[in-house]
């Protein structure tokens, strides 16, 4: 603009000052933005971004303690798929997710549907379902380990009262994983219930009123109103619960079962922790970590594509 340099002197001068002032304000805004963003962007880069890259890179190395890094190419990945313990934990994790995610979904949706209406003390009930969620997984794990203790635990005593003899809940390789699943659902249901409740509140009441006048029953209303309109919420819950269940809960397993008995509760994420911090296999652990990130990416992208980003009905509209 200044390059034009034609016209009356005063007008040119005025436009030039306006331009510089505007420019300087814009650059001031940019500098301010940079400064405002700096702490978080640098922190996230250093403590999330860099570790992410390091995780992938380290997967190609054999790490001995803190000094020795030896490049070994894909050996960690070859080792992974020849490692019966890794394959076992992969299978366990899959089994765990296949039961846990739908279970958590159904339980939290059912709770949300149960207490969406106003009835006496509904806030108190909501609080009760959510309460376990504010307690640490370490304490949650301890409480249940205590309640499930062989012979003298509360669960065993109560079942015994009804003449049912208990197996060793946490000592039996066929049961321990399902105990972890049950405790996880109990712990997490209140959180997902709240998100479902938020989704339910977005559904206009009039739809139900019209449906009621048309004589639709409870199930029909759920099938034709609630379920379709709840799909974005369901999408969100499937995505986030899978991510958090696949990568979380080490604390619970650490306290409740330590991965046992017979590795039956050794989920991948626990296996990574064990390889790195019990056996010092940082390279191998990183390779498995990178593998999990890849699975998460495939899952997220796949779910996103399948559901068109949670907006299911766009194609039909």
């Amino acid at each position, binding site marked *: 603009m200044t390059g034009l340099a034609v016209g009356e002197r005063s007008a040119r001068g005025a436009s030039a000052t306006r331009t510089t002032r505007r420019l300087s304000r*814009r650059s*001031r805004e940019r500098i*301010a933005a940079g400064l*405002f*963003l700096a*702490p*978080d*962007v640098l*922190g*996230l880069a250093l403590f*999330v*971004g860099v*570790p992410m890259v*390091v*995780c992938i890179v380290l997967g190609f190395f054999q790490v001995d303690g*803190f000094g020795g890094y030896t490049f070994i190419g894909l050996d960690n990945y070859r080792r992974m798929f020849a490692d019966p313990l890794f394959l076992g934990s992969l299978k366990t994790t899959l089994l765990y997710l296949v039961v846990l995610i739908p279970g958590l979904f159904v339980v939290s949706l059912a709770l949300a*549907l*149960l*207490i969406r*209406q*106003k*009835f*006496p003390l509904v*806030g108190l*009930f909501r609080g009760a*379902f*959510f309460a*376990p969620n*504010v*307690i*640490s*997984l370490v304490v949650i794990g*301890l*409480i249940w380990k*205590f*309640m499930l*203790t062989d012979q003298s*635990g509360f669960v065993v*005593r109560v079942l015994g009262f009804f003449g049912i003899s208990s197996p060793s809940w946490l000592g039996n390789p066929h049961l321990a994983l399902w105990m972890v699943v049950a405790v996880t659902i*109990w712990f997490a249901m*209140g*959180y997902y219930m*709240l*998100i479902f*409740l*938020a*989704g339910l509140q977005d559904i206009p009441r009039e739809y*139900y*009123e019209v449906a*009621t006048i048309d004589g639709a029953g409870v199930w029909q*209303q759920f099938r034709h109103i609630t379920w379709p309109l709840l799909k974005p919420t369901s999408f969100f819950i499937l995505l986030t619960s899978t991510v958090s269940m696949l*990568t*979380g809960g*080490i*604390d619970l397993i650490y306290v409740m079962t330590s991965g046992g008995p017979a590795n039956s509760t050794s989920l991948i994420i626990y296996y*990574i*922790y064990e390889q790195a911090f019990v056996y010092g296999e*940082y390279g191998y652990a990183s390779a498995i970590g990178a593998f999990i*990130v890849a699975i998460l990416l495939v899952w*997220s992208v796949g779910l996103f594509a399948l559901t068109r980003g949670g907006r299911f009905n766009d194609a039909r509209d």
Partner: protein
Amino acid sequence: MPATDTSPAADAPVRPARARTTRRGWVRFAVALVLAVAAVFPLGWMLSGSFRTPDDVFSPSLLPAHPTLHNFSYVLTQVAFPRYLLNSLIVAVVVTVVALFFHSMAAYALARLRFPGRDTIFVLIFSTLLITFPVILVPLFLIVHTLGILDSYAGIIIPSIFNAFGIFLLRQFYLSLPRELEEAAIVDGCGYWRVYWKVILPLSRPVFAALAVLFFLANWNAFLWPMVVTTSTDLSLVQVGIAAFQQQHAADWNFSLAASTISALPTLGLFVIFQRRIVESIKTSGFK
């Protein structure tokens, strides 16, 4: 609400809500009551167990036969529990305060300031939500080791500060604020920092309260990172302390339960006081 109402509105269309709460409503109430009691029962069992004597700790009776405070006094005097509690308090408070400050600064810039690449930066920040902590545990450990802050408060605190979740929620909140509030200040010649400090921060109080509770809870309950990054027991946080204590005293459930109760009470207290705010922040985190 009318999802349960199958009977056509034969009675009192003037006050339908009242009419609907009758029979079906009470069935719901009863079911909810039973489930809610079942949901909090294990917490009550912990509380009850923490007052029991060693002989009584496995008794199936709901209340302790001879209630005692001995378990609490034991873990508070014979174990370094007060130290663990103090460590957790320091870490949780520092992380919460610093994180709120940094996140609100970043969120203000992302919501209000114009600069090139703003959307890209936001998407990049947002995508870090997919990279959860345990996955990068190993490389994070090596980075913290390289920085020379292993086994220190800094090592526990600094990596715990950075989390895109808070930035995201605060940005949503700032986007919803009316622009006129800041524009007046800018016309008056305020710089961006003054606008942030004098206008944005005071308006952030409600969302800060909710996030502060969530951050505090998360850090008070943190286990994996504090355990991995510290070796000296002087730096143990309360959850690490409890887990270690239980492993060393596996038979003394009365002590472990008392320790658990001590660590859970502050979080339950915060929850009771801030329940509404917590619920709201979780609902808004559902990316509506």
